[in-house]
């Protein structure tokens, strides 16, 4: 009995990144309206995906990322498959540059996140423009990405300690 409970706890711990991503997707669908709506909600799942793809991709398999993205798509009412594609692209970027980023200073990794966020913004903008048949304004998207990039260090610290204390067993 106790070993079963232990196993469950282990799995729950190992699934923490996935749950955090899903939580981020739910937060994106909640009427948070930071500073009276003047600041867009940061894309927490993007941080989750980048962070764990870089430091421990095994804890955030592609299936989890797909699930996070689909949940976000379903809640936002946008075209299905959009956010999974974007998050998987981020994972691809992170994994392919892993050997470069690991062991570097924090701000280098932060820059890497900024580059990844901006490249997927371009993909997002291109697809949505194609989808709607008009060139869409980029202001809102850039603001949201900048907000996400700005809060990245805070979340990276939190996720880092979470990873050490919870995800990897002590």
């Amino acid at each position, binding site marked *: 009995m106790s*070993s*079963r409970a*232990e*196993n469950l706890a*282990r*799995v729950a711990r*190992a*699934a923490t990144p996935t749950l955090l991503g899903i939580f981020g997707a*739910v*937060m*994106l*669908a*909640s*009427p*948070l*309206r930071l500073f*009276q*709506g*003047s600041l*867009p*909600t940061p894309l927490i799942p993007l941080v989750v995906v980048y962070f764990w793809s870089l430091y*421990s*991709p*095994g*804890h955030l*398999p*592609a*299936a989890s*990322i*797909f699930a996070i*993205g689909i*949940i976000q798509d*379903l*809640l*936002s*009412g*946008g*075209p*299905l*498959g*959009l956010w*999974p*594609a974007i998050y*998987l*692209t981020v*994972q*691809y970027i992170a*994994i392919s540059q892993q050997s470069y980023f690991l062991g570097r200073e924090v701000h280098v990794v932060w820059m890497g996140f900024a580059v990844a966020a901006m490249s997927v913004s371009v993909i*997002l903008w291109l*697809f*949505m423009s*194609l*989808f*709607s048949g*008009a060139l*869409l*304004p980029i*202001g*809102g*998207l850039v603001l949201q990405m900048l907000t996400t990039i700005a809060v990245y260090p805070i979340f990276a610290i939190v996720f880092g300690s979470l990873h050490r204390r919870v995800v990897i067993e002590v």
Partner: protein
Amino acid sequence: MDILGQDKREVFGGRSNSQVGLLLFSLVSLILLLSSLYAAEASVFKKARETALEAASPVLTFVSGPIGWVRDRVGDVGDYFRVLDQNKALREENAALRQWEDEARSLRSVIAALEELDVYKAPPSAKPINAFVIGEANDAYAHSMIVNAGSKDGAAAGLAAIDERGMIGRLVDVSANASRILLLNDIQSRIPVFVEGSFVEGLLVGRSTSNPTIAITMLANGDRIEPGQQVITSGAGGVLPRGLAVGVVSKVTEKEATVELSADYARTRLVRIINYDFPQVVETEAETPAEEPAEKVAPASQPAPPAAQPAPVVSQPVEARPQAAAATPPPEPVVTTQEPAAIVAPPAADEGD
């Protein structure tokens, strides 16, 4: 048990098949994406969205409670600093509203007189459904809100949703207990509108910016959209009621007019879904296709289609009209001939079917 225990590393810690999984799921999402590009409103996707809405609504209700509480507190703090400005603005608004009140009183007497007439048929009253905003899409290119009223409460896809300031959008996905409102500035939003003062009917198109625009396709000679004119729903197409306040024209170019929305999406918390039974045209013109929302009558008159002469709204001698109508009751709906006092709007006769 080994699957959950010892081999956990292979499931949640292994690296061996991560590339394969990445490729596989990227492929799946690409296929999904392409299919939604070509069939965005496919019933499968719609069903999936509604199911997700239903499943997420308790979670979102749970999450939005504390958020609302915190926002109220923070909002209050902000209000303390702006209290003088707000006071001034409110006083001005109060003065303006008092003028409207006088006018509304006189109009009410006119309407009462009109309602005495035999030919008058009361418009079906709208039954608003109140709902709280429990979620919204914080996506750069998706503008929608999730409210906690669904088909159980009488909501249905296509209905208009308003808040205390004006129209905010229309319902797109409706599940049993929750529905999604597509906001007016979403790129998929198209709302038939009417510009008061210039008598132009148009289509309000969402641009994914904060303000949607009216696409101007054709203007008759003399029709001019000018900044400051009120924009209301036109009721064309027979889906939305006529006369919901939408916004004010803020900028006009050759091809489009930008509309500053009355609604403030950052403040919308309580919405009303207007469950409006459209009067069916039974015979030729015996029925008055009246389209008056219960509480959101736009301030100015609801004039006839663009061809009508631009009658000044306020300055009509209101007493003369009911008497004239009583003397010679016209065979057609009474109000059709009475533009200025026509809260019960006539125009759908040639456009609303």
